[in-house]
Structures are given as C-alpha cells and as structure tokens.
C-alpha cells in the first residue's frame, strides 16, 4: 500500500513539478538593445555575423534527469532532442551532464556564434547556400530539453522542454512607410503606416522621418530629421515651425526588428501648412474685442479663484 501511495505522489511531482526556461541576452545585439533579454524572439541582421549570442537556462525539478540537458539550434521544430535526420542537421550548443543535474544543477549559461545558425549551412530555398551577410531572411529555433525518469525509475518519464526562442537572421530591408500628410497652421501632421507584405511589414518596429523645404530652384533639398524614433504604436508626428503656404518634402523610413532600415519613401510626400482659424480667431474676425476681462493673462483662472476664495473667507469670518 505504501509503495503505491508513494508512486501516486511521485507521478504528479514528475509530471508537473519541473520547469525549463531559456533566455537569450539582448546585450548580444551588436547595434543596441543592451541589457534586455528575450525569451521569444532574437532577430539580427548582418551586423551580427561574427558575434556571439549569449544565453542561459533555468530549471527546476531536474534531479530526475536521465539524459543530458541539451540546448540546440534547428531549422525545423524542436522535438524532444536534437534531430540527426534534419537537413541541415541540428546544432547542439550546450550540454549539461546527468550527474550535474542529479546533484542539483538548476541553471547555467552558454554562448554560440551567430553564424552557427543552421540556416546558414545549407539552402533554405531549394539549393542555394546562404552565407551570413547575404540579403536573406530565415528563422531557426533555439531549443532545450531533458528526459526525466518516471515513477518506476525508468528513463521514459516526462521530457522537460523549454519554450523555444525564435532565432532570426533578417538582412532584408523593409519597405518604406506610406505617409499621410495633414496640413495644419504652421505645422504638418504626418501619419506613417507600414507598407509591404508578410514579414517585411509585420516586423517593422519603428519609423524615422525627415523633412525639407522644397527648393524653389529644383536644387537638392536639405533634409532634417524630426520625431526621433517613431513607434509603430504612435505613428503620428507633427512637424512644427513651418511657413504657411510653402511646400515641404517629407520622407519616411521603416526600421524592422533586426534593425534593418528601409530606403526613403519615394517620391517624397509633399505638404503645405495652411492658416486655420480657431474659435478665438473667428471671434476676433467677427469684430469682437481682444480684452478678456482681467487682461488676457493665462493666470486668469488662479486669480479668479483667489478672489472668490477671499470673498468666501470674508463671509465665513463674519458669520463666526
């Protein structure tokens, strides 16, 4: 009876008690992203060729391991262990020994060269090999797994697997954004929209914008950047301090998750700020006088509040 009870208690412990998590350090990114970590996607362009990717794993409940814990790269799906039949073959980048896991090892770090991604080894498009630096876009997975013993101590229990991290080599610049220009008074409002199809549009992370006064003599426009890094979630920028009635040329750039920058939107959008009449301008144009009471002071509201407060206090004191 007692062994049965022990087995019943042990099975759920093995089935649900272990975790395995993979993390890739964003500091591996050669052109930014320092200090950030990712457990879902790691995308880089050709600037990552020749650099190393640093990562780590953290596990719990792995003392029942009966195989090595492996971290590997694959062009296919992860499976329980690295595949020897995939083409190109999976690349094992880290191994933790059974004895270390049994002794309580719960985490470790690893690294591998970015150009070890198996997608570089052999063609992913039917025969042409891909080298790091080519204008190409592919996705591999970083996987981790370890086999655990079951309740009878057989090496057929649960396989602890980490959620894979998408390792993406993307050296294809995205399409430039579409621009929608709205003329305002001495300003232009520009809304940027990701263009293109598939991954070239869906992985755009931000935009950049520049503008220039349209040269009257057909010369080369002198562009100035505006708006800094423009989030795709807040893609409207106002260009201030323009001259009503003059034409301005506007170009946008898309930046994808691998830091590829598109070419400029061509031809540039043209906008012309225009004089607009708000309520106050309409009031003055109707013949109304500009005096606003206690002057046109912006501090009118606080002043009025102060006066009324004094009046209220005076009333209260008289009553007291």
């Amino acid at each position, binding site marked *: 009876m007692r062994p049965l009870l022990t087995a019943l208690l042990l099975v759920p412990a093995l089935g649900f008690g272990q975790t395995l998590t993979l993390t890739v350090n964003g500091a591996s990114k050669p052109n930014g992203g320092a200090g950030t970590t990712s457990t879902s996607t790691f995308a880089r362009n050709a600037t990552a060729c020749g650099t190393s990717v640093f990562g780590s794993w953290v596990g719990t409940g792995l003392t029942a391991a009966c195989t090595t814990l492996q971290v590997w790269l694959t062009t296919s799906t992860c499976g329980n262990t690295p595949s020897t039949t995939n083409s190109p073959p999976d690349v094992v980048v880290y191994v933790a020994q059974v004895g270390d896991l049994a002794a309580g090892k719960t985490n470790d770090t690893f690294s591998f060269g970015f150009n070890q991604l198996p997608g570089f080894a052999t063609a992913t498009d039917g025969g042409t090999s891909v080298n790091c630096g080519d204008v190409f876009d592919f996705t591999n997975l970083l996987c981790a797994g370890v086999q655990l013993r079951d309740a009878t101590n057989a090496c057929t229990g649960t396989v602890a697997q980490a959620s894979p991290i998408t390792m993406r080599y993307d050296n294809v610049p995205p399409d430039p954004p579409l621009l929608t220009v709205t003329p305002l008074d001495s300003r232009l409002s520009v809304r940027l929209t990701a263009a293109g199809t598939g991954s070239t549009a869906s992985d755009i992370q931000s935009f950049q914008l520049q503008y220039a006064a349209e040269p009257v003599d057909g010369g080369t426009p002198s562009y100035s950047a505006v708006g800094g890094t423009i989030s795709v979630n807040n893609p409207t920028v106002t260009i201030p301090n323009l001259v009503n009635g003059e034409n301005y040329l506007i170009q946008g750039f898309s930046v994808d998750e691998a830091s590829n920058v598109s070419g400029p939107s061509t031809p540039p959008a043209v906008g012309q700020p225009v004089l607009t009449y708000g309520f106050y301008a309409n009031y003055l144009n109707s013949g109304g006088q500009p005096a606003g009471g*206690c002057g046109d002071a912006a501090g009118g509201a606080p002043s009025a509040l102060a006066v009324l407060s004094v009046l209220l206090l005076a009333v209260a004191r008289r009553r007291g």
Partner: protein
Amino acid sequence: MRKALLAAVLLLAVPALAQTEAKPLPNTTILEVKLGFYQPRVGDSPGATSDAYVQTFGNSAMLIGGVEVDRSFWRGYGYLGMSFSIMYGEKYAKALLADGSPSGESTGLMVLPMRLMAVYRYDVLANRFHIPFVPYAQLGFVSYPWWTNKGGSVEIVNGSKGSGVRWGWGFTLGLALEMDFLNPTYAREARADAGIYHFYLFGEFNDDFANNFGANGINLGAAYFTFGLAFEF
C-alpha cells in the same frame, strides 16, 4: 392665472401662520453635483457682427458639470445662506480654413464658471407640511475663467492670447424635489447615522451676465439649465 396666484399666496401664508409652533431648524450645508448645457452669448460681445461660437461649434451647447456648496446662516422662515459653485465645460470642433471649410486641426473653448451667490430656499413646505418641493433662488457674482485651444495649445492671434477671465452677475431659479418620501425609513436612518437631513433631485434655470458688466471683451454670459443631485447635512 388668478387662481394659481391665489393658491401660491395661500401656500406661502399657511406655513407663515404656523411658524410660531415650529421648532428652530439647525443651520445646514447642502452639497450639489450637477450637469447642464451651456451656450455663451458670444454673438452679443461688443463689436461682434456674428456669433463666433455658432460659426465654430455650430448651434450646439457644451456640456458643463460641477459642484456647489450652500451654507445657511438663518433658518427662521426658509433657508437663507451663501453658495459657491464651480463648473467646467469644453467644446471642440475643427478649426476653419479661409473658405470656411473644416481644417485638419481642432479648436476648443473651455470655461470654468464660478458663482458666489446669496441663496434663499423656501423649504417651509417640506419641513412643516411634508410637501416635498423646495423652490429656491440665488443672486450674486459670477467669474468665468476661459481659454481657447488650437492644435494643442492656447490660441494666439496677432499676439492676443485667447484666454482670460470675465466677471459679472447672475441669478438662479430652481426647484428641488425632497426625496425623503420615497423611503422614509432610510431617510430617518441617514439622518441618525450619517447626519444627512435630506436628499434632493433638482433642476434650475441660470442666467449669467459674464461680460465684465458691459465692458469690452468676449461675452460669456448665458442662460442655461442645470440638473443634479443634492444632499443636506
């Protein structure tokens, strides 16, 4: 008309005769929360040949809301006291192009009406005869801080900033419905436990003359209705 007038006189007279028998009432505070629709008489501003409010926002009033505090200082026959209220309202529309068509940017008018009033509430009917209506009137000073907006900042036209304060006077005529009769038990408990004497629903007509007593500048006075909820404690 004559019958109505006679009825009103009798209604006022009966409690007057009975007042010597009534207990003196404590001074109380009334807190109100109210909403209304306000459309300023901008077209009546000195020099204005058209109504810039209608031109910009259409013939559509702005929603205003706020709070009012009344405090009595005499309860001999009714409720005589002072009140202070502060409300806020704003209205937005598209700024206009030279041809009068809407542009791509917004313009707005914001007002912060404040009123310091003497208030008289004829609550004799409710207190002595359990007729749950309290007519009231207010008269006093008003202050209207205001500012405009175009494209996200205060509108400035030829160096003149579209903001300021308008002063004036105003009055209110209102009618409150004392809610105690709906649930007398709860009303008694509210009074005993929380010190709340009465709950009211009310509607009132206001007319403010916020034009710096006829001086130059924008006229933000308006006749408008407000409705709300009040409790007396």
